């Protein structure tokens, strides 16, 4: 069996029992050494503390021990036969947000502590938010100090309920709750005898079992060239780097960006010259290509049909890490992204995010230390990137101040900036009320094979029959013309949806009912289309065609599921790419329970009512 590595981060203050919990994990997994324990016992005694202060183990700097606080990220290591663990132990107060962000950037799992007596405090909510912002796939909420609430199941359930409600607003995919007592060791390594009502795993068991292998992006092949290795004796020329997405194999056809040349992989070598048949994240390898083309550090090797976005204008969430000056529009920095470094200017600060309430303050003019906000960036050289939630390593960047050389910001790319390019809006003399009819957009979303198009065709037919102006915008049809240059990568899908949203908006503005039928898998993309309509004062109706995937796959009208399962198509929604169902659609249709006529009628009814 392979002994995997799991990186986890914790955040919290001494009061939460975080240090005690870590000390307990180290102690019970027999990682704590006798001399470490003896040293801690001695110092505890010298300071007149009547218990062994396990926090002394983790507080490594003199200032931390003297002030009894945790300032920085400390890394701890322990292992079980199943896994090796790296704990990034970070302080929990709001003034250490930057340390939490640093510790969370590479974590597979975030461990959040809640004091059973106090319930879900602002601090726990902030930790959960930061974990979701940094894209940590797994969250474990330890409800600690259960001994002080009489091991009450009721109290535990209350906290679980409250936390879950908050977390529903976040981008968290996997969350577990464990009632523990770090002080007494309950549910840390062994199941607690004091809480027989709890049927889940102990914390350590959970950490050993949680499935992390599929957290990596194994779909989008991304290989940023880090270093060119040349050996003059043997005329060897290889491109060294770390695979940050997808799987590369000898023989694969690849494209090199930004040049756009295509070639194929001749060989892949592991460190020291071990031949590699399949290279995947996070392997560090050296790639030999069939053709000699000009490639240097900062270039990206990918597949011709699945490319990252390339551009100068980027939207991103940034956390400001500097005690010095604040982030302000107009500021220029060195941006480090994948293996590329170039100059970036902050074009605009869209809003500042309150990490406690998630409120967006659009009037903010700057970001101070520990503040998080959304910015528009322009870079001197183009970046080759994916949205951060698609790939942490092609979506994350840092900003470096050129005067102090300090790292001043951590950034997470949300996507290409959707810019007006400075064009001036030309007003017309025809108002919406002057047009013959009032338009709007009805947007059908759902899995491939859900029956969207069938319903959409019927909706269009009915509207026309009733004398309305209507026009069907079918996602597949548009890929033959307007969107024929787009692939099925996450970035291109976003662009696909954006274009259709814009076209629908134009139809709606012209007084036509645009009937959109497209998978549009990502919630954020659909929300953007809705926002564009709302900003223009046009109706937008989101209809979720909720056919279960088993049914879609059984139907498989275009044979696409079969091909995706066979691995012929990658990035297929529902198979190896996510479908994010609408959270509050205007209408849900279930084709397994009603026929097309009835479903279409419900759509037309809703449109009529909305007018």
């Amino acid at each position, binding site marked *: 069996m392979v002994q995997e590595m799991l990186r986890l981060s914790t955040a919290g203050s001494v009061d939460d029992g975080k240090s005690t919990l870590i000390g307990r994990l180290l102690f019970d997994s027999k990682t704590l050494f006798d001399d470490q324990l003896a040293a801690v016992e001695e110092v505890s005694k010298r300071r007149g503390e009547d218990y062994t202060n396990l926090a002394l183990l983790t507080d490594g700097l003199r200032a931390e021990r003297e002030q009894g606080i945790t300032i920085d990220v400390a890394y701890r290591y322990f292992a079980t036969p199943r896994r090796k663990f790296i704990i990034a132990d970070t302080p929990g107060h709001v003034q250490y947000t930057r340390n939490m962000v640093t510790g969370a950037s590479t974590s597979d799992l975030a461990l959040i502590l809640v004091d059973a007596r106090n319930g879900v405090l602002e601090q726990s909510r902030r930790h959960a938010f930061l974990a979701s912002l940094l894209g940590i796939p797994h969250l474990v909420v330890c409800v600690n100090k259960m001994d002080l609430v009489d091991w009450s199941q009721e109290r535990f359930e209350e906290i679980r309920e409250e936390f879950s409600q908050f977390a529903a607003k976040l981008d968290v995919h996997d969350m577990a709750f464990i009632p523990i007592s770090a002080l007494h060791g309950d549910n840390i390594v062994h199941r607690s005898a004091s809480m027989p009502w709890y049927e889940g795993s102990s914390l350590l068991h959970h950490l050993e079992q949680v499935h992390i292998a599929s957290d990596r992006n194994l779909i989008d092949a991304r290989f940023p060239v880090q270093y060119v290795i040349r050996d003059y004796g043997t005329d060897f020329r290889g491109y060294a780097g770390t695979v940050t997405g997808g799987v590369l194999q000898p023989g694969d056809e690849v494209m090199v960006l930004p040049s756009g040349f295509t070639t194929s992989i001749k060989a892949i070598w592991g460190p020291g010259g071990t031949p590699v048949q399949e290279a995947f994240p996070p*392997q560090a390898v050296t790639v030999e290509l069939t053709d000699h083309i000009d490639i240097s550090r900062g270039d990206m090797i990918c597949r011709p049909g699945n490319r990252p976005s390339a551009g100068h204008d980027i939207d991103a969430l940034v956390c400001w890490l500097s005690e010095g000056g604040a982030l302000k529009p107009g500021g220029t920095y060195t941006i480090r992204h994948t293996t590329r470094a170039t100059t970036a200017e902050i074009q605009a600060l869209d809003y500042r995010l309150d990490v406690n309430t998630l409120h967006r303050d659009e009037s903010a003019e700057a970001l101070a230390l520990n503040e998080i906000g959304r910015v528009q960036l322009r870079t001197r050289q183009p970046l080759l990137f994916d949205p951060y939630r698609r790939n942490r390593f092609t979506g994350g960047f840092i900003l470096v101040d050129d005067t102090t050389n300090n790292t001043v910001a951590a950034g997470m790319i949300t996507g290409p900036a959707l810019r007006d390019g400075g064009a001036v809006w030309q007003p017309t003399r025809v108002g919406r009320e002057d047009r013959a009819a009032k338009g709007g957009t009805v947007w059908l979303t759902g899995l491939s094979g859900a029956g969207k198009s069938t319903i959409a065709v019927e909706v269009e037919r009915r509207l026309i029959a009733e004398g309305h102006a209507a026009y069907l915008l079918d996602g597949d049809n548009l890929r033959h013309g307007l969107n024929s240059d787009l692939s099925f990568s996450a970035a291109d899908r976003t662009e696909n949806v954006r274009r259709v949203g814009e076209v629908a908006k134009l139809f709606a503005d012209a007084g036509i009912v645009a009937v959109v039928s497209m998978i549009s898998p990502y919630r954020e993309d659909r929300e953007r289309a809705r926002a564009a309509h709302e900003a223009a004062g046009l109706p937008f109706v989101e209809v979720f065609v909720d056919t279960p995937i088993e049914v879609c796959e059984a139907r498989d009208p275009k044979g696409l599921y079969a091909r995706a399962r066979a691995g012929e198509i990658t990035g297929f929604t529902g198979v190896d790419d996510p479908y994010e169902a609408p959270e509050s659609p205007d209408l849900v249709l279930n084709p397994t329970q009603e026929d097309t006529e009835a479903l279409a009628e419900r759509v037309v009814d809703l449109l009529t009512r909305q007018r």
Partner: protein
Amino acid sequence: MTTAYELTHLRVLEAESVHIIREVAATFERPVLLFSGGKDSVVMLHLAAKAFWPAPPPFPILHVDTGHNFDEVIAYRDATVERLGVQLLVASVQDDIDAGRAVEETGPRASRNRLQTGTLLRAIKEGGFDAVFGGARRDEEKARAKERVFSFRDEFGQWDPRGQRPELWNLYNGKHRKGEHIRVFPLSNWTELDIWSYIRDENIELPPLYYAHRREVVARDGMLLANTRFLTLLDGEQPYEATVRFRTIGDATCTGCVESSAATADDVVAEVSATRLTERGATRADDRISEAGMEDRKREGYF
């Protein structure tokens, strides 16, 4: 699904270290790798050799020589340099003492450990090195647990633990002005057990001191010190012969050994898995100076 695309944690660590080493070669003008012949620097050099295959590492290695060496280590060092075809630089503490730049401690407990810092900083300055690879690991000591992989040093070679640059994802910030440098620790996330497991798996040769052998030792301050020509016996100290091995190797006057019968890497892995003492706690007099011993020395520019 037939392939799970799994990697053992040792391969993950190896990949991370190789990434760091390549990053330095790509972004610095004059890197240098500190090599003492100790197992961590041996593993680091092994990784550097693998990172640039089939080419040799594009930087020299530097040995800070206290003059108090175990002969076996020097022999090992020279053989390794020969085998890998790397350039060896030696910075000698004795030179600094002879030139009056350093003053040797006196008395039977005298050590050149602290003097190494001055010699190291002089060598960095004279060589114009802007990146200096060190084999320190975060599990060794609590001040090291907080140090970055890319650790900034000012023009005096000093470390400011409270002013460290945030380090995110696998993006490292090595920017510095002329005269300043970056210490780089590619083994930050390795533990002692990881190092030994890797030595075993990769079949890496080490100085023979790391394996059980018969040697004359003296017991001092709860440690066993090798009775070498550099050691001055204290009153009442009686050298005796024992079967020992070293868990760390540094200056011969302050590196202790442990009684052990572990004669192969396999044996050592088994021994390290079961041990109840940290390697520095068991064998390093230099860390016993004070609770903040390592932090203070690191601030001054120590390894």
